[in-house]
């Protein structure tokens, strides 16, 4: 299938080469030309310089025929917006957004946008390692922790 990746950071570039290894065609978008240097030498896919929430750029990347879309920029909101455009407007079958803020990741998962929060998963993995516990499943790592993150009560709330 054709996959569009937004954001050629470490995750985006790594994902691009993993997808290619599995035989998929990849187009990767970034707004910084330097970012494409992270791609491996053998990268066959297309690179596009541009802003990923601009639909003209997404179309150029082949969003209309894409079977998958991954938003991996370091901006949560850019990822959220582009993932929604891919899913709602272009009906891309598999759409994933990386979102650092766990609460936001959770909120958008409720809205039907699949999200990965490296914050919760990364911290959870470190915790389990430190406590010498066996690894848990992704679902367990990303279980919402809303109670501890929201303001405690009327004092904090206006």
């Amino acid at each position: 299938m054709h996959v569009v990746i937004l954001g050629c950071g470490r995750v985006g570039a790594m994902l691009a080469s993993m997808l290619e290894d599995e035989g998929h065609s990849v187009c990767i978008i970034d707004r910084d030309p330097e970012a494409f240097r992270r791609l491996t030498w053998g990268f066959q896919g297309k690179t596009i310089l541009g802003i990923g929430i601009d639909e003209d750029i997404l179309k150029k990347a082949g969003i209309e025929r894409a079977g998958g879309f991954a938003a991996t920029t370091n901006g949560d909101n850019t990822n959220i917006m582009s993932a929604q455009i891919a899913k709602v407007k272009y009906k891309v079958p598999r759409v994933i957004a990386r979102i650092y803020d766990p609460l936001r990741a959770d909120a958008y998962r409720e809205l039907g946008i699949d999200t990965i929060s490296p914050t919760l998963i990364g911290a959870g993995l470190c915790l389990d390692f430190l406590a010498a516990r066996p690894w848990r499943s992704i679902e367990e790592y990303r279980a919402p922790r809303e109670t501890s993150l929201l303001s405690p009560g009327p004092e904090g709330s206006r």
Partner: protein
Amino acid sequence: MYVIVGGGGKVGYYLTKALRAAGQEVTIIEKTRRRFVLLQEEFGESALLGDACEVRTLDQAGAVRADLVAAVTGDDEDNLVICQMAKRKFNVRRVIARINNPKNEETFQLLGIDETVSSTKLIYSLIEQEVEVADVIPLTALRRGNLEVVELVLPSGAAAVNKRVRDLALPRGCTLGFLVRSEAAEVINGDTVLRAGDSIVAITPSTNVQAFREALLGPRVPAS
């Protein structure tokens, strides 16, 4: 009315100022400390330091009791998230998003945010009126129905001069309302004969403004 303003840049600052002057309760949320300190100096308790995209910050601002949230940061994607969070997580009745890329108006609507304001589009439409449709003046746009109320002064030599309204081929959905002729106003009906100099007020779908213009004035002639 309780309003939450997301983003303490120039737009947010002046909006907050105007709302406060109008006696409304406002909280303005700004995420950079430097800018926040400035806002706090002027607005005191009404300024809140935090990221308006975060559920936690909106919760702190009391989004559950907000009547309106205006997202006016400089980034479209941030404004989208602020509005979606306010709407979906806190059931805020009315949300308004500032957008920079006029194309995002449609995208925002698709994603459930109906009210957007684009300064790019506003300025562009002013220029467009100047260069394109100088003679059709938009009076007001009925936003949700996509109808516009427009005014047009019929120049001599226009296609519709000395014609009966019923004989004009008006585009779909256009209705001529009334005209002003030498200080007297009259309601337009099918038998009204249009004269040069008539100032006509009409309702037209936004998409048909150009066709409306051509129906009354004739095909476009190169600008002099």
